[in-house]
C-alpha cells in the first residue's frame, strides 16, 4: 500500500494513530471472517485487497465514504464476485489446492503426516490444549470443556478463543506444508503465540 493511501485510510478510520490502527485491524479481521464464510481463496489476502482499495478511495475522495464499514463491504462483495470469476478460470492457487486435496482424498497420508509434523512444532501447552479439547464429542464435550476451563482458570469463551488460535496456527502450518513442494526442508515458522 502506498504511504499516502495508508495515511488517508488511517485518517478515515479514527482520530489519532492508535485509534485508527485499532480500527484498521478490527475491520481487517471482520473482512477476513466475511471471506472465510464466502470465498474459496485465501481470506486474508482478499481482506488486504479490500483495505488497499478502501485506502485508495480514501485518498481520492474521502467525502464519498460515509461509513468505512459499509464502503468496505461494498468492495468486499465486488471482490468476491471477481474472485468467483477467477475461480471459474481456475487460479493457480485453487488449482494447487484442488490438486493437493484430490491427492489427499485419494491418499490421506500427506495431510496426516503434515498434521503430525505441525503438531510436533507447536509449543507443548498448545499441543496439550488441542489434545484435551478434542477428547470428547457430543454432550460429554461440554462438561469436559468446562472442566478444562476451570482447571486453567478461564471462562468457556476464553478457552475457546485460545483453542481457536491454536487451531488456526495448526491449520496455517498444515496449509503451508501442503502448499510447499519442498516442505521437507525449509518450513517457515508459524506465527508466534499471541497473548490471551
Amino acid at each position, binding site marked *: 500500500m502506498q504511504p499516502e493511501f495508508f495515511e488517508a485510510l488511517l485518517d478515515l478510520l479514527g482520530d489519532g494513530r492508535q485509534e485508527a490502527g485499532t480500527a484498521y485491524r478490527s475491520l481487517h479481521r471482520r473482512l477476513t471472517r466475511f471471506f*472465510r*464464510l464466502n470465498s474459496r481463496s*485465501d481470506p486474508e489476502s482478499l481482506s488486504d485487497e479490500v483495505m488497499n482499495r478502501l485506502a485508495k478511495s480514501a485518498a481520492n475522495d474521502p467525502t464519498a465514504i460515509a461509513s468505512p464499514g459499509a464502503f468496505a463491504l461494498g468492495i468486499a462483495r465486488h471482490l468476491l464476485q471477481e474472485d468467483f470469476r477467477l475461480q471459474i478460470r481456475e487460479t493457480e492457487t485453487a488449482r494447487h489446492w484442488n490438486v493437493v486435496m484430490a491427492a489427499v482424498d485419494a491418499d490421506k497420508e500427506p495431510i496426516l503426516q503434515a498434521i503430525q509434523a505441525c503438531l510436533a512444532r507447536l509449543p507443548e501447552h498448545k499441543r496439550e490444549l488441542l489434545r484435551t479439547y478434542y*477428547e470428547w*464429542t457430543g454432550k460429554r464435550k461440554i462438561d469436559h470443556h468446562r472442566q478444562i476451563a476451570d482447571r486453567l482458570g478461564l471462562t468457556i469463551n476464553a478457552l475457546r478463543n485460545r483453542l481457536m488460535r491454536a487451531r488456526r496456527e495448526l491449520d496455517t502450518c498444515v496449509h503451508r506444508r501442503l502448499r510447499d513442494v519442498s516442505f521437507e526442508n525449509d518450513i517457515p515458522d508459524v506465527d508466534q503465540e499471541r497473548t490471551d
Partner: protein
Amino acid sequence: LSESKPNSRKKLLHYVSGIMSASDREAFEQRLIEDEEFSNAVEADEFDLVDDYAAGVLPHAERKQISAWIEASPERRARVLIARELHRSSSNPQKSGFSWIWWAAGLAACLTLAAVLPFLRQPQPPPPPASVATVTEPATSIPTDTILLAAERMRGSRSRNPANTYTVHTGSPTHLQIMIPPSARDSDYMISLQGNAPGSRSPLQFAGVRPQGDTNAPYLELTLPPGTLFFDHYTLELNSPTGSYRLSFNVEVK
C-alpha cells in the same frame, strides 16, 4: 443486541447454505462487517460447526445444510480433515500409543474368532429383527453397538432401498451384522466399507469373512474398534464367487 447461541448458529447455517433471504443476507453481512461482537460470535459458531461436522455429531438436517459449503472449499475440507484427525488421535487418551498396527491386529483377532466360533458353539439363533438398530450385550462391561443390515444384490449402480440411520457411541466397538440369502452362505466374502463424506478414510477392506448362523439365516459379522465410524453415509460392498451385494447406511455418533 446479542443473540442466543442457537439462534446465531441457525442464522449462520442459513447464511452459508444459501437459504437466507436477500434482505436477511444483506443485514447479516452488514453486521458481520460493522459489529465486532456479532463478528466474534459468528467466528465462534463457524468454528464449532466445522468441528461438529468433523466429529460427526451434527443433526442430519444441519449436516446436509453445511456439507455443500464445506465441500466447495479445499481449505474448509482441509480444516475438517485436521479436526477429524485431532478427534481421532485424542479420543482415547489412555491409549496414546494406539496405532493402525494394533487396530489391524485387533481386527485380525476378531476375524479369526469369527471364523472359529461356528465350530466351537451350538447353532446361534438368527440375529435380532431389523428394527433393532442398537443392542447392548449384558455379558460384557464395554457397551457394544450393533448395526444390522440385509444384503441386497447389486443391480446397477444404486441401491433400491433408502439407507437407515444407526446410532453408535464414541468409545464403543461396533458389530456389523449383515444378513445374506441362505443360498449365499457357502462362500467367503471380501467386504469393503467406505464413508462418503469429504475427508473420509480410504475404504476399509476385510478379506475372507465367513458366514455365520444357521442355514436359514446366515449372516456376516465384523467388529469395528471404537472410533472407526463417524457421522457419515457409508457404502458396504460384499463380494464372493457366488455374487456381489451393495448396502448403504447412515451413522450418527453420540
